[in-house]
Structures are given as structure tokens and as C-alpha cells.
């Protein structure tokens, strides 16, 4: 499991508005890539194009190519549902399904698609996914309780468990820690470090220390001004971006002298 993603000449639109312009980037398999940049520069928008979640918004569209191990996600006849079952996503705010128990939340990807699964297999999948998300020990005695009763950090890890339960190739995380306290954040960062052994992880973050801690490579996005499209400014090893960036704007941003 885990595949690489190659993006070439990607333009992302909201109706007529060009939100992200001309992105070329390669995300390696079994590694963590972080996207950093100021608010509104298109990092999240770009992330959502990687599993075709962008087009859920009315009027949104994409031009260019995104190759998942050589298969173009935006080729004719590609079903976005197939794409999303291979590229999972964790959102900014934890969003467990309120009508489901913790167990059912983990099994949501299976159950919602009405795939039959023997109870023993389901139990195994629940335990494996929750262990994978470092949540098993905290919830193993109350799997039947509603997922919305957990704390914010636990809910977010539940969402990660839900994402890895469908065994995707890639996991996209859109600011997964921005709504969490430092301890929950640490738990998720540890988890990201473990996840990269099996998955390709892409994470959007506003926290530069977090990018420095968890990622192998970092991409810096920036925007020239309001109404202008966001652009990929620089993409390199995380150490290079933070210690020896080649672009002036990257250096300004990572050193806090932005604007």
C-alpha cells in the first residue's frame, strides 16, 4: 500500500475564479509532505483536488493532471468515488457521524457501502484501525457509545481511524490539529510519524513547528494579493525549506517576517 502522486500543470477554479495556478509537484510514497503558507493561498483547495473533493463545491473545476502511480485522477471516465476510496481525507474539524457509535464510525466506510463483513472480521478491523490511530486503549471499553461523546482530540483520532479502516493508499490531512490542544496535537503528530510507514501522508498546516517536526518534504504556497491565484513557491526537503530556502518569500514566511 501507498502510492506516489505526480501533479503537473494543475489549475484549480471556483467557477471563473482561478484559485490555484500551475502547480507541479511530486509527492513521494511512504513519506510525509507538508503544505505551508498564509491563509487563503490555496493549500487546502489544492489538497482537496488530490482526491477530487474539490468538485463537490458547486461550480468548482480543475484543469491539469494528477497521477496516482501513473493513473490520471482527472482522466475521462474516472469515477470520483473510486478515487476517494483510495485517497482518504481527515478534515480540519473532527466530524464523526453523530448517529453512529464509535465502532460504527470506524466501520463507516464499509457499512455505508453496504459491504457484508463477518462480525469477527469487523471486530478485527475496528481494533486494527483504532490501534493504528492510537485510540484503542482509550475507547476499547465503550465501542458502543456515540462517537460524538469523545473529546476533540479523540474525535479527530477516530476520524483518522475511520480513514485508515478503508485501507487507502494516501491520506490527506487538512489542518488536522488546528482545533486541538497541544497534548492531542502531540498524539496526532506521533501518529503521523507511524502512518508514513504504510501510507503516503499529505498534511496542510499553519503551524510551522509542526511541519518541521512531522514532514520529510515541505511545500510553500503563497499568494500575490487578494483576488490573485495562489502558487507553489518552493518545494524541497523540510530541512532545506526551514534552514536554507532558495526563495526570499519562503525565508520571510518561515522566519516570521512575512508581509
Amino acid at each position, binding site marked *: 500500500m501507498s502510492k506516489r502522486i505526480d501533479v503537473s500543470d494543475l489549475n484549480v477554479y471556483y467557477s471563473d475564479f482561478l484559485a490555484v495556478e500551475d502547480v507541479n509537484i511530486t509527492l513521494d510514497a511512504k513519506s510525509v509532505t507538508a503544505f505551508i503558507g498564509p491563509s487563503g493561498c490555496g493549500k487546502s483547495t489544492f489538497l482537496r483536488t488530490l*482526491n477530487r*473533493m474539490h468538485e*463537490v463545491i*458547486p461550480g468548482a473545476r480543475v484543469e491539469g493532471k494528477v497521477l496516482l502511480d501513473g493513473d490520471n485522477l482527472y482522466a475521462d471516465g474516472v469515477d470520483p*468515488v*473510486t478515487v*476517494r*476510496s*483510495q485517497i*482518504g*481525507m481527515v*478534515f480540519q*474539524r473532527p*466530524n464523526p*457521524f*453523530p*448517529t453512529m457509535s464509535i465502532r460504527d464510525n470506524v466501520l*463507516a*466506510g464499509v*457499512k*455505508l*457501502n*453496504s459491504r457484508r463483513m463477518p462480525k469477527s472480521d469487523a471486530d478485527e478491523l475496528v481494533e486494527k484501525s483504532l490501534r493504528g490511530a492510537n485510540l484503542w486503549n482509550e475507547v476499547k471499553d*465503550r465501542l458502543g*457509545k*456515540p462517537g*460524538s*461523546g*469523545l473529546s476533540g482530540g479523540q474525535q479527530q483520532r477516530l*476520524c483518522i481511524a*475511520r*480513514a485508515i479502516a*478503508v485501507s487507502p493508499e494516501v491520506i490527506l490531512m487538512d489542518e488536522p490539529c488546528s482545533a486541538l490542544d497541544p497534548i492531542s496535537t502531540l498524539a496526532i503528530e506521533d501518529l503521523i510519524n507511524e502512518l508514513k510507514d504504510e501510507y503516503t501522508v499529505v498534511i496542510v498546516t499553519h503551524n510551522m513547528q509542526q511541519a518541521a517536526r512531522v514532514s520529510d518534504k515541505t511545500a510553500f504556497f503563497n499568494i500575490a494579493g487578494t483576488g490573485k491565484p495562489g502558487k507553489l513557491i518552493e518545494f524541497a526537503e523540510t530541512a532545506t525549506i526551514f534552514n536554507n530556502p532558495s526563495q526570499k518569500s519562503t525565508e520571510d514566511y518561515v522566519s516570521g517576517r512575512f508581509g
Partner: protein
Amino acid sequence: MAVPMTERKRSALTRGRLPTYTPHVVAGSAIVVAAALMALIGFNAFGWGVLSAVLFAAGNVASSAIVEGRRKAVDKLVTSVVVGAFLVALLPLVSVIWTVLVNGVPGLLAPGFLGTSMNGVTGAVDNASVANHTPVLGGVYHAMLGSVLITLWATVISVPVGLLTSIYLVEYSADNKFSKVITFLVDVMTGIPSIVAGLFAAAFFGLVMGPGTKTGFVAAVALSVLMIPVVVRSSEEMLKIVPNELREAAYALGVRKWRTILKVVIPTAISGIASGVTLAIARVIGETAPLLVTAGFASQINSNVFAGWMASLPTFIYTQIMTPTSPSNPDPSAQRAWAAALLLILLVMLLNLGARLVARIFAPKTGR
């Protein structure tokens, strides 16, 4: 070392405020003065209550204006107006419930009222029960059965149509022109007078099945015309408040749109949808006009909605009052009508309670 301060007898913080017992004093004197005034012009309890309330409000505001100043006085004036408006709004409700209870309870408790129909109960029977002071015969079983069946069929027609319409509007239409037209027409439908819905159903079935077709099903169609817009509107609102994040979470797991709607969106909104449907039922179960022109009257039990005239509670009340079974002794008919009215109110109340129960049962659990 600081000496602990003792509490002052007259606090500086309450200077210029009326003592807390003032409202009681004002209320007491208002009641006494009102009684005295009423004694001068002729006493009645209702006038006494209203006059006391007005005097109490005036006394409160005046005393506050003198002692506490303008701001407090305005506060008390507005409080009095708001409470007064609430009481005025409550008055008809309490009055209706009281009247129906007083007039309806004897009939409702009459033996066989809930279990028998009006079949065979003629003017002679009513005359005899008045002359011999025996209990009033005849009951509402046929009307109750008719009301329940007609409303059930109306629900069976309206819920799928209404729910699917609201799903289209919220999930699929993306606010296109067509959806705006639907929304507009639904709003227009909400305002249709109920008799027009009845005439529509009667005319429609008259064309299709032959003139003068009156069955329970025709009535159900007429009621569903009134019910569908209510169901559409309430379900639409409920589906709209399901957070988009949940839809996206399901999409991101590789779940198809229709499965997301069926298994995530609707279960999340089901409590609101169910209580909306129950309230829509409560709204149409008391309709009279459309039933008069679609289901006709009947005095015997008819459990087939597809054939024959069918009685219902509202039309039963109407006919019992307007054309008493025995024109010379209308009292038994009036007693039955009031009892049926009480029964109808009880049914609507039960439906409202049911709606709350349904909402509570289906609501997403939040326990830990």
C-alpha cells in the same frame, strides 16, 4: 490586623430602590380598589380580574417612576405590556379548552360512545332518550375510523412525495431555476384554502372515475394536497441544517452520493423530519371543508377507503350541530358533537406529544 466589617443595616447599594414587598402591596391594593370600583358599576369576575391587572400594572409603574426613576419605570411598563400580551394570547386557548372540556366530557363518558356508530340512531331514538332520561345512544366509532384511515392514506401519499421533493431541493438541485420554481409553488400551495384542495380532488376524481365519486381515498388525496407543502418545507429545513462536513466525511470515505443521503444525511435529520410529518398530520386531521366535498357523510361503519362514503370526526361534528338527528330535541346531537370535538382535540394533542417523543427517540445520542 484588619477588623472584619459588619454589614450595614441600610445598604448603600439599595438606596433609591423600592423594597421587595412593594409588588405584593400594590397587587393587594389593586384587587381591593378594583373590587370597590366594580361594586359601583355592577360586579362580574372577569371585569374584576382585568381591572385588577390594569391597576396593578399602573400602580407598579407609577410607584417605580416616583421612587426609582425613569429607566426602572420604563422597564416595568414594558414588562407589564409583554406579560399582558401573553395573557391575551393565552385567553382564547384556555377558553376553548375549558368550553370543550365542560361540554364534551359527559358525552365522551357516555357508554358506547367510542365503540358504536350512528347506524340506526334516528330522531325517534334521541326523542326517547330525552323523554325517558336514559343515556344518549350513538357514537363516533365510524367517524374515528374514517378520520384515522383518511389521514393515514393522506400520510402515505404525502410523506414520500414531500420527502423526495425536499431531498431534490437540498441535495441535488444546486439552487437552479427549476428548484426556485418548485420552492415558489410549494409556498403557493401552503396558502391554498382547504376547500379548494377538496374541490380539486372532487373534480379530479369526478373526471377520472365518473361524477359524484366520494370515497375516503378522494378525501385522502385532498388532504395530501394540503399536507405535501408542509412536509416539503419542514423536511427541507431539517436537511439543510445537516452539516456539510458530514456529507464530505462520507464522500471522502468513497461513499456514493445516494448512499450518503440515505445513510448519513437522513438518519441525522430523521428526528426533525418525523416530528415535522407528525405536525403536518395534526394540521390536516381537523380539516372539515375538503372532507365535506370528497368523502361525504356516513352514519355506518365503512373501513374501505376505496368505496362508499366515509364519516370523519370534523364532518361528524358539523352534521350533528347543523342538522341534529332529531330536529325537535337537538340536545343529544349537541352532546355528541361536543364529545367528538373533545376527542379531536385529544387526538391532535396526542399527535403533538407523539412528535416530541419521536424527535427524542430519533435524536442523535450524545452520551459518553
